[in-house]
Each structure stands twice: as structure tokens, then as C-alpha cells.
């Protein structure tokens, strides 16, 4: 859907008026296109230099980024790792940083945090449009109060910094859950967060466990050879997810209700996938979905539970049918299909399941007790299933979209829609593709470090943060 304010504010006249009237100035976000480099310009890398624990890790991180095609400049000074020889010539030519990355995994004391301040104080003034800030840390583990306080402090820094950033820039925190979680699990997170794929992911904390991850042969086709089923694929976010998965190499089975078959066929034909007309609430739906994928494509690697409905009503006025249908489609169907996926002949080893939750399920929403119940239920389901999926060498995660520009939000009253759009750090609604990119990323084999988590794609929405 068109955000006319965003277009206007980014026109020459609009820019002047907005500046003069001090209006919010949403930026046109950098979004991923096939062939794009990870970053348009150089990345400034900082860390807790001098620490024995950190030195080898920092080099590894630098090498990882350089191998991903990023121009890395290692910061010098108190916050840098002190190797000016690696400074790239590009840095002088382009005074703007495309990203600031700080490795705080070695942070143990409150005093270490001052190095972050110093690093960002220097770097933020030169952060370019749609810039990226990524802080790498370790999750508090209860071992030492001073260390845990320091680690938790990163959370506050990144969330606040995300709110300070302008011009489409985002800040996110990546926490390694255990000491075993090495840089292998970090690579996919870095490739997602630095790229245009994470345009609308802002102020989020991503926790990575120590799971084994597989690196794709070609990072531009991270889903090559995978078979993916996407429910609710006939339109909106589902169609966008199907498109992104197909673009990234997956064989996509686009599923939706039989009555949505006409647009479903169009989506399947556009992306070179196949259509599967299926009511996911029917008793035999899990069996039919799995049998279909097995018979036609030899198995299923990825299932995206996107199908969902809303039947909004204040709880006092809610009819049983409105309650039941929302829970049946949004939650019960997912529960049954996931259980079936864990059975022999279900999801292949290394599989990925991504469930669509919602910020309504986190923060609640007036008139949506049924919808919020289903979406909060999805979050509980994902957390609870995580262990079983891990034993299957698979993962299950949820993506919670905030305000996304879809047919559904286009139907909102003008004032409500306009307010909802701006209530986030990026001052605009997200696009369906933003959700699709996050779902796609969690589907990568390389993203095995994420399990049982909820990733919000909300531009750091003020609601339910």
C-alpha cells in the first residue's frame, strides 16, 4: 500500500517543509535486491582490543566480514583492536560508514561499556543512510553479577541507540547464548542484519545458541535445493514469503484455501512453484500437506505457518464462531501440523519451521482478544517445541510483524492507520517483503543458531517493546 506521506517527505519540496515544520521524516529504506552487496559502503569494526580472549575472535569476525565482501575498517584508539594496517582505502574516499559493528563479547565490567560509548560517539556522526549498528555480546548466564550486569547493559544501549538513529538506520544486538556458540552461528545473523533484508528489523535482540549450522554453497541462493511449504500464500505477506523463498532457491509449495485458488495459482506461476489448495483446519491437512511434499518433491525442509485470519470484536460482544475460527486457523492448525512434522517421514533433518505471530500477541490489542490469544499462543508453542525440534536437528521460530502495509491495514480508518504507521523508530509501516525476508533468513540452514525465538519485524514499534 502506498505511504503518500513517506513519498512526499522524500521529495525536494517535502524535505524543506518537513524540516521547517519539524515533521517526522521517515526515510526510504534500503531493501535487498538480488545482486546487491551486503553493504553499499565500508564497515567500521570495533571491539575490546587488547584482551587475549577477544583478539583472535575479532580477527575471525573481521575475516568473516571481509569474506562476505564487506570493506572492513578496524577502528583504532581505545575502542579499536589497534591494527591500522587493515584500514581500507575506501574509507578515505567515502566518508560515510554503512555499518558500525562492535564486538562486546569480551565485556566483563561496567568500565568496558565506556569503550562502546567511545566507539559509537566517533562513528555515529558518519553513519550513512539506512546504516546498520550491530553489537555482538554474550547472554547473561548467572555466573557473575558484575559480568551479567555488563552484558544486560548492552540491551539498554542498543534499544536506546535504535531510537536515536535516523535516516533509515537500525541497531540490533546479537547475543551468543553459550561459550560454545562460535562465529559460525554469527555469520548468518551478520549477513541478514547488515543487508537490506533486515530493513524493518530494529531495536531487536537476537540470541544465538551453539547449534551446528550448514554454510550454503552460494550465499545468494541460501535455500537452494530446499522444499518449502508456505500457507496463506495466495496474497499479502504469504505471497511475499513465497516469492522471497523462491528467489533464494527454494522449491515452493504455495498453499491456501481452495476458495483462494485463483490468486494462489497466479502466485505459484509467478515464482515457478506449485499450488496446493488446502484448508489447514481440516483433520487430514497435516497428512495431505506432508504427503504432497513427499510425493512430489521427495520431502519437506521448510514450513512457513503464515495463514491467519482476524475476526475483531470486543470480548463482551464476541460470538463463539469468531472466537473459534481465529483460534482454529491461527493456532490449532499450526499445532497439529507441527506435531505431524516431528513424526517419521515429516520434516527432514535440518528443517526449519517459521510461524507468524504478531505484536498483538505480545502487547495485546483492543478488540483482538481472540487474535492475540492465537498469536501469543504461537509464541508459547514455538518456545515449547524448540527442544523437540532441536533433537530433530531442526529449528522452530516465530516472526512477529508490527504495522505492515497490507490490504488488511489499508482497510483501517485513516487517522488510526496514520498514527499506527509512525509509532516506531523508522516512522513508517513495514512492507510485506520485510516480513518475508526475516522469515526467509530464519529458513536458512545457516540460521540454526536461532531456535524457539520470536523475531519482531516492527521498526522498533513502541507497542509491546
Amino acid at each position, binding site marked *: 500500500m502506498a505511504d503518500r506521506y513517506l513519498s512526499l517527505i522524500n521529495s525536494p519540496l517535502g524535505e524543506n517543509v518537513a524540516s521547517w515544520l519539524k515533521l517526522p521524516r521517515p526515510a526510504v529504506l534500503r531493501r535487498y535486491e538480488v545482486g546487491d552487496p551486503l553493504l553499499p559502503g565500508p564497515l567500521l569494526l570495533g571491539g575490546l582490543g587488547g584482551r587475549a580472549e577477544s583478539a583472535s575472535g575479532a580477527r575471525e569476525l573481521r575475516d568473516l566480514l571481509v569474506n562476505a565482501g564487506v570493506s572492513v575498517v578496524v577502528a583504532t584508539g581505545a575502542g579499536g583492536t589497534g591494527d591500522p594496517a587493515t584500514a581500507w582505502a575506501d574509507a578515505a574516499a567515502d566518508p560515510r560508514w554503512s555499518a558500525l559493528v562492535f564486538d562486546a563479547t569480551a565485556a566483563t565490567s561496567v568500565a568496558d561499556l565506556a569503550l562502546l560509548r567511545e566507539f559509537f560517539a566517533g562513528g555515529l556522526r558518519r553513519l550513512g543512510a539506512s546504516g546498520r549498528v550491530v553489537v555482538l555480546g554474550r547472554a547473561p548466564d548467572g555466573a557473575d553479577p558484575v559480568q551479567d550486569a555488563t552484558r544486560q547493559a548492552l540491551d539498554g544501549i542498543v534499544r536506546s541507540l535504535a531510537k536515536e538513529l535516523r535516516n533509515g538506520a537500525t541497531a540490533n544486538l546479537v547475543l551468543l547464548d553459550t561459550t560454545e556458540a562460535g562465529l559460525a552461528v554469527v555469520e548468518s545473523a551478520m549477513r541478514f542484519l547488515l543487508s537490506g533484508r533486515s530493513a524493518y528489523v530494529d531495536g531487536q535482540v537476537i540470541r544465538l545458541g551453539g547449534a551446528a549450522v550448514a554454510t550454503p554453497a552460494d550465499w545468494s541462493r541460501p535455500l537452494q535445493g530446499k522444499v518449502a511449504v508456505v500457507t496463506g500464500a495466495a496474497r499479502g505477506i504469504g505471497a511475499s514469503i513465497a516469492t522471497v523463498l523462491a528467489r533464494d532457491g527454494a522449491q515452493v509449495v*504455495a498453499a491456501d484455501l*481452495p*476458495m*483462494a*485458488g*485463483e490468486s*494462489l*495459482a*497466479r502466485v*505459484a*506461476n509467478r515464482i*515457478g*512453484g*506449485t*499450488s*496446493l*489448495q*488446502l*484448508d489447514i483446519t*481440516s483433520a*487430514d491437512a497435516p497428512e*495431505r500437506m506432508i504427503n504432497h511434499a513427499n*510425493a*512430489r*518433491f*521427495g520431502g519437506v525442509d521448510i514450513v512457513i505457518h503464515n495463514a491467519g485470519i482476524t475476526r475483531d470484536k470486543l470480548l463482551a460482544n464476541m460470538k463463539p464462531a469468531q472466537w473459534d475460527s481465529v483460534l482454529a486457523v491461527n493456532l490449532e492448525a499450526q499445532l497439529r501440523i507441527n506435531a505431524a512434522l516431528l513424526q517419521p517421514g515429516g520434516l527432514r533433518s535440518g528443517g526449519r519451521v517459521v510461524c507468524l505471530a504478531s505484536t498483538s500477541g505480545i502487547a495485546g490489542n483492543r478488540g483482538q482478544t481472540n487474535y492475540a490469544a492465537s498469536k501469543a499462543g504461537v509464541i508459547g508453542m514455538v518456545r515449547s517445541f524448540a527442544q523437540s525440534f532441536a533433537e530433530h536437528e531442526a529449528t522452530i521460530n516465530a516472526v512477529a510483524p508490527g504495522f505492515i502495509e497490507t490490504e488488511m491495514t489499508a482497510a483501517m480508518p485513516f487517522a488510526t492507520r496514520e498514527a499506527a504507521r509512525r509509532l516506531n523508530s523508522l516512522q513508517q509501516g513495514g512492507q510485506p517483503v520485510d516480513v518475508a525476508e526475516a522469515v526467509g533468513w530464519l529458513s536458512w540452514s545457516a540460521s540454526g543458531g536461532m531456535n524457539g525465538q520470536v523475531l519482531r519485524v516492527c521498526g522498533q514499534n513502541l507497542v509491546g517493546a
Partner: protein
Amino acid sequence: MAARRAAILGGNRIPFARANGPYAHASNQDMLTATLDGLVARFGLQGERLGEVAAGAVLKHSKDFNLTREAVLGSRLSPRTPAYDVQQACGTGLHTVILVANKIALGQVESGIAAGVDTVSDAPIAVNEGLRRVLLDANRAKNLAGRLKALAGIRPSQLVPAAPSNSEPRTGLSMGEHQAITTAEWGITREAQDEFAVASHRNLAAAYESGFLDDLVTPFLKLSRDQNLRPDTTIERLAKLAPVFGTRSPNPTMTAGNSTPLSDGASAVLLASDEWAAEHKLPVLAHFVDAETAGVDYVHGDRKADGLLMAPVYAMPRLLERNKLTLQDFDFYEIHEAFASTVLATLAAWEDEGFCRQRLGLQAPLGAIDRARLNVSGSSLAAGHPFAATGGRIVANLAKLLHEKGSGRGLISICAAGGQGVVAILEF
């Protein structure tokens, strides 16, 4: 070299609509293209070059001389897929299946689509025959004077267009009027016809409810189920309808409820060799075994034995004989319900010892079939009958029934205008 059997991999159709309903402004080409695209989406055939696409329409505009090829070019199939048009009245759809299956059996093609489409809403309206001649004469004239002279021959009566009609050119009788004669001659009662019609609606409704049609139908123009389907119809309700055919006879029995309505729609069936199916990882639903076509002399023949829609009765013993089968050797029967009484008269003829001896040259009647195996997921009375689309609907339906059963044999019988009939055997 023994001919191989063609495999039926699946089908697709759009829901059938009543004439001048939701598809009133859709052309044959629109419907056929949408149906092909739905099939392409279901089987992942985007950009695929198939051996051929054979399709047809009974009511066809002269501008649609290359209807099927045009639909292929508008679809997501490879534009390098050749196509041709076929027409054998209501036998068109099944006949396209026969043609493609035979080419596959002979190894001439590895894959193909057999399809059919019809619209009575967007039917061609021809210029009055007299006017057509005047205009052609004017076109042939060498100068202005000649043209004016020719055009001066136009008479007001010639401005009335020739409306389309489904009457037989040789008798002037509509199909319904022809069937009314057969119905009366064979003594098919109103009650039996109404009962049969109710079963068709119930069976089709149950098929939709169970999800059987989820991978056979793709919605079109906001219609997701056959518009004619009345899941809650009853014998009592049908009994109230006034007869519409044979109304001059003393005891007319055929009503709008036990006759198929004029319909718009399209269907397509994907066929291939077993090898092609395996290469494309597409499960085989059933195989095409054999087919037979017959004609009756409905113009000069016997009122009872040579009814316009009785030709399948004659084709059947020839098909069974060639395949060394009896009428009872089948798990499913798909007899096209042009009218409830067509099916009932056909069954009556096969059970009639005298008729089978005298007219079919058999020692004994073909006998009765198990009615519980007949049109088990509904047929034309409930779904509607876009003439050339019925064959594809039936073939895909029967192939899926056989696949679900995992064994067995199915029999198809379709009557057609011009006193023709097509019958065919499918096997798991």
C-alpha cells in the same frame, strides 16, 4: 512393439457456472487459459514444453479458429508447445483425451494436455444467411457501382441475426425434445429421474465437503464451487417443478431439475508416459486403456432404439468385447448426465434382453450395474455441463477415484449431439 499405456496425472477445471452468470463476459479463450494456468500451477509446468495440447469448444466463434493454440500462448506453458482444436459436440472433451493418449501410447509424444471449454453466455451470433450473401457479393464487386448494386439487395428481414440454438439441424428438435422421446419410449418415470438428480447433487456436495475436489478445481472469477450445485435439494422440491421437455406428450417427465442447465466452464487433463511422469516426480493417478465411438441414425431410425443420445449404448459392447470385459468388471462408472433420463435409459437398454439381442447382436443382455458405483462424486446434473468441458471433468474425476482406491477399473460413457457417443476405460 506393444503400445504403452498413457498415464493420467491429474486435471484442473474452473467451477462450472450457469449460463449468463458469473462467466457471462468471459470468452472461451479466457476460460481455457485460466484452466491451463491452474493446471500449470498445480503441477509446476511453468515454461514446460509439452508434446501437445488438444482442446475444443462446441460453440465457437469463427475468430477462434486457433482457440487452443491462442490459449497456450496466453498461458504459462512454453510457447513452443503445439496445439490444435477438436470438435465432436459433447464428446469433444473425452475425444481430446483419446487423441493425446493415443499419441502417447504410440510414442509420438511424451506428454500432453487434453482440454475442453464452452460458453453459452458468450456464444457466437451469426449474421443472417441472406445478409451474409449480400455482403460477400458486395465484397466481390469490382467497382463502386457493383458494390452499391449488391448492397441494394439488403432486405429488412435480413438484419435479424441468426441466434445460436442447440437444436439438431436435421430434425429441428432440441436435445431435450429428442431425449423426451427416448424417455417416453423407455418408460423412465419422473420419480426415478428426480431421485437420480438428487443423488447427483448430494454426491457432488459430499465430494466438495471432503476436499476431494481441492486438487481438481481452481476458482475463477470469484466462483469457487459449481454454481448449479444445490446440496440441500430434495425429491419433494424437485417434484414441484413443471416439465419443460416433451410437454405435448400426455405424460411429460423432464424438468429443469432433472436436466442439465446450459453452462459455462472449462476443464483440462494432464497426460503423459509413465517415464515422463517419473522424471517430473508426478504421481500417476490412472491409465487410459481404450475407447470406442458410435453413432445412431436418430433421423430415420427407430424411435426407441435410435434415440439421439443413445449412441453410447452401441459403443459399449464393442469396447467391452475388444477388451474382454463385462459391464460388471468395473469399480466406478461415470455416465454423463445430459439428462437424468439419458443415464436411466442407457442402463435400461443394457439390461433389456430383447434390445441387446436384436440391436446389439449379443447372446445375453449386458446386464445391470451396481448403482452404488455410479457417478459417486456427482456428475453433470449437479455440476452443470459446459459441452466440451464435461469429458475432462469426468476423466480427471475418475482417475482420482481410482488413485484413491489404489486399484481397479473405471468406465466412462458420454453422449453427444448428432447421435454420437464416446465410451472409454481407465485403469489404476
